[in-house]
């Protein structure tokens, strides 16, 4: 790679793949900077950044991991929220009709409910919060099957291994999933906001800091916000 045209390496949470592709395409319309995207689970990417992985920007699926990096002095500035996730209840089984009141989860037709790991995935902790709030958690906890990430949780639902489950709106509106089963958006006021943040990393400091900063600020531009919205995220 020539020094005239810097290559940025950005670490992106796996479930942001399509969104980031759209963002890069949009960005490259005005700026030829080559952008390599490394996908991975937010947690794993964080571990790697803490061990000097050569990433310039980290686009996380939550706020906790970017904050961890900032606290450990791996960031050039504090992380900023770029979008907010929307929790949905989704089922691919024809006889099941998801409803926002969650009462159907107690039905015996439903043997397993997929949820992302509340410890590691923000969508998981949001779903758990919601279940507790509706006083259902203890009643359905034996039916819960935990996916390691929101994508794995979605695979449980998509393959009908789980009868129903909580996942991200960004997944159910994606081009691979949009015709599969039925989903319903859950009331955003009933769970804490699932904020997703990005952070500019220490590694960017040096010859391609300018390019990195340029793409980083693009993530918060109106053009980017339109793309987030289209992809099933909430933007402020």
């Amino acid at each position: 790679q020539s020094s005239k045209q810097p290559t940025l390496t950005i670490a992106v949470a796996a479930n942001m793949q399509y969104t980031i592709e759209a963002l890069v395409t949009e960005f490259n319309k005005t700026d030829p900077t080559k952008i390599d995207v490394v996908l991975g689970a937010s947690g794993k990417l964080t571990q790697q950044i803490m061990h000097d992985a050569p990433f310039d920007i980290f686009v996380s699926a939550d706020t906790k991991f970017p904050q961890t990096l900032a606290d450990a002095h791996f960031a050039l500035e504090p992380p900023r929220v770029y979008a907010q996730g929307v929790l949905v209840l989704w089922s691919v089984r024809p006889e099941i009709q998801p409803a926002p009141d969650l009462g159907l989860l107690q039905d015996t037709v439903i043997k397993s409910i997929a949820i992302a790991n509340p410890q590691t995935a923000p969508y998981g902790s949001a779903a758990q919060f919601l279940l507790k709030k509706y006083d259902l958690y203890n009643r359905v906890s034996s039916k819960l099957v935990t996916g390691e990430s929101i994508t794995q949780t979605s695979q449980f639902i998509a393959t009908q291994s789980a009868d129903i489950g909580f996942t991200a709106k960004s997944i159910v509106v994606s081009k691979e999933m949009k015709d599969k089963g039925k989903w319903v958006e859950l009331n955003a006021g009933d769970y804490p906001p699932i904020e997703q943040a990005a952070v500019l990393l220490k590694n960017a400091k040096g010859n391609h800091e300018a390019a990195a900063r340029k793409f980083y600020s693009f993530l918060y531009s109106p053009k980017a916000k339109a793309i987030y919205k289209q992809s099933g995220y909430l933007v402020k």
Partner: protein
Amino acid sequence: MIKFDPIWLTLKLAFGTTLILFIVAVPLANWLSGKRNIFKTVIEAIVSMPLVLPPTVIGFYLLLAFSPANGFGKWLEQWLNLRLVFSFSGLLIASVIYSLPFMVHPIRSGLSSLPPSLKEAAYSLGKTKWQTLLKVLLPNIKPSMLTAIVLSFAHTVGEFGVVLMIGGNMPGKTRTASIAIYDEVETFNYYNANVYAGILLVLSFITLLILYSFNRKTQQQGFY
């Protein structure tokens, strides 16, 4: 907070898988070690295939196969009222499939290296193929059997991708120690991760040491 459920579950899974594998693999390995033909060569290559795919991917394909929405899973659910996804039985089956080559290959190569006259001697004494296998051939390939058992056992203990995919991380049911460690690392609880890893290592180390000591005794008596 360290729980012992996952450790216990892991041991149950590892012992169960090793046992089933042994029962499945011995006849298969014996068949493979017999007179060679192309068909056997192909089967032998196929046995190794589960190794080639990343565990999570195998897990994904098994998820598809076991899913109650599809043929096989549907059949199981309707006729046997058995759902393999997110259950211990499912884990067991998945582990058996995934670790099959570790059990089959060493036993097969052990059997191939025995002098053919041993088998013939047992036949001439009127023993069936089964009796010959169990009482003459297997006892004389102890080092190979040990390799097979150690590799299968250890691999099942550390196995993680498939278990994660098929098991659904259900505490006490499908949340094995390897997943517990993974979760702790993911959430930066290094201390807990280290404790789990330590327990796993110590337990496995002791198990292996016991196995090897048996082997050591056999070896000292001078082996074939």
